[in-house]
């Protein structure tokens, strides 16, 4: 069962509203705008799912996913990547993300994808 979702995006507008949307579906959501703080946070929070943007300053989303998927402790956390460019689909598959959604997204598509990961 996925309950706790951690979202990481450097655009706080997208971050807040996506959080509210998922909360309206009953998920417990936490937000992280700074990608460089994400990995320690995942280790302590242990979310059921990570939703992460690709293009972010300092630490890019694909690098983070690569690190998480190599680490035994975090490899089991499902990851959905979301980004505005079409190449993100390829990037997501290369780094071993579990799914991908294009921005702007349809909330039904996103919740369907979340349910499929359960």
């Amino acid at each position, binding site marked *: 069962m996925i309950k706790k979702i951690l979202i990481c995006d450097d*655009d706080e507008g997208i971050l807040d*509203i996506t959080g509210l*949307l998922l909360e309206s579906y009953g998920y417990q959501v936490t937000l992280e705008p700074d990608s460089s703080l994400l990995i320690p946070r995942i280790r302590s929070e242990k979310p059921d799912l990570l939703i992460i943007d690709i293009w972010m300053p300092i630490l890019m989303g694909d690098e983070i996913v690569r690190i998480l998927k190599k680490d035994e402790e975090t490899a089991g956390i499902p990851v959905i990547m979301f980004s*505005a*460019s*079409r190449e993100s689909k390829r990037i997501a598959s290369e780094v071993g993300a579990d799914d991908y959604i294009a*921005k702007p*997204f349809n*909330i039904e598509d996103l919740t369907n994808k979340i349910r499929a990961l359960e």
Partner: protein
Amino acid sequence: MKQVDKNKFSFSDQVLGEELIFLLTALNISKAGLTITDCSQPDDPIVYCNKAFENLTGYSREEIIGHNCRFLQGNDDNRQEREVIKNTLHAGEECTIEIRNYKKNGSLFWNELHLKPIKDDLGKLLYYVGVQNDITRQKLADQQLRIERLKVEKQVLGHTYNFIENNNLLNTFLETVNESILILSRDLKILKVNTSFLKTFHIAEDEVLNQYLFEIDHCRWDLMNLRSLLDQHHVNDSILEDVVTRVGKKMLKVKISQIFLEKELNIILAIEDITELKEIDRRKDDFLNVASHELKTPLTTIMACIQLTQRMIPKEADDKLKDTLTKAKEHIDKLEHLISDLLDVSKIKTGKIELSKGAFNLDAMVFHVADQLRKAHSNYTINISGYASNYYVGDKQRLEQVVLHLLKNSIKYTPSGGNINIHLSRLSDFIKVSITDYGLGVDYQHQKKIFENFFRVDEVQKQYPGIGIGLYISDQIVKNHGGTLWVESAAGEGATFSFTLPLKFKNDDKENTDL
């Protein structure tokens, strides 16, 4: 010769049997161009062509299969000949005719065309075989004879005018044009140079006159590709990248032609500095790429806000309020597509378009796209006939984009509503998708241009909004799959957009695993 069983001579399935291989080899050795058209399919598409036909026309097999033979006629009227062909095909008879055809590069050739029907035991027309011979040389010899006769007549009248003697004319011409021009002797010594060349490359006249081209400016012009360009003995042009000159690295467009001046062979080298032009083009592409990405970020927030509002709105709320939100969402979708298209253009221009290939049911995809549009456009009847493939390996999302775009175009340019017919077929080792509408049509003069980016037909522009990139993107997607996309139409009579895709296309693209 033993007659080939028509079941064996199947163009659709994998060809087996030595007999057929021998036969096909023989056909490929033939000097005459050979085509076979399938009369059971709409518009009699070509299902077979031999090597000689490719050589004769300059088109590759990928560009030939699926077309009707008239693609060689260009914009030429050929009315009389066309009438003869039409009647012959209609009656299922045989004929030989001389017709003006055009190669891929636009040059004219005279085609002696022999058409012969293939029928089954019951006399039903199955295929037409076309045998084509290039008789241009004979035709030209006749013409040349007539021209020579005219010249002699002119000379007798004393109307010869020698341009070469008029040095003034040449000098004025050289100084008027924008390009940098060099006139060289056969052994590449510089005989004449214009001011544009001296100014563009910061060189003095005495540094270049009577010098060998490859020795001037410390051999800076001794470039491999310039040498090979000069080796070819005909008019030629080419782009030379990263040419190091006194004024920095340049991108040059070079055109070479040859001329006899005072009975000596001379070479004219015209150089256009396109460095800045390319830089502006590159900056435009970068801008498109960044802008479209940046535009999507606020759009994502707006989209999410609307969706959140939709979820928060009480059930008993006014329907008008709910409709307004649905409309807003629809228009954001439209804006998103527009931005995606712009992003695609910038990617195509920078060669970054990526295909994510996988096997899918192409016919089902076309049915699905048609279904989507049927719901939104109830005054159109979208019919689908034939079948192409239920197992095609390609980028499903991208090809869906092509079909959707072509259908939307048909709808857009058939404002009165009505029939739109989709025909799916398999021809040899290709699949073909044709979409026919009965709307405005495309004038011949625009039929190639509509596949260029940002091109809009002037008179259409005002009435039908759009930015002119959909067909460009579609064409590029089809090309990336090794296929061809084209239109056949006459203004006011509707249009048929068709594309073919090879079933066995292989290139360097990695097959991406679908998520």
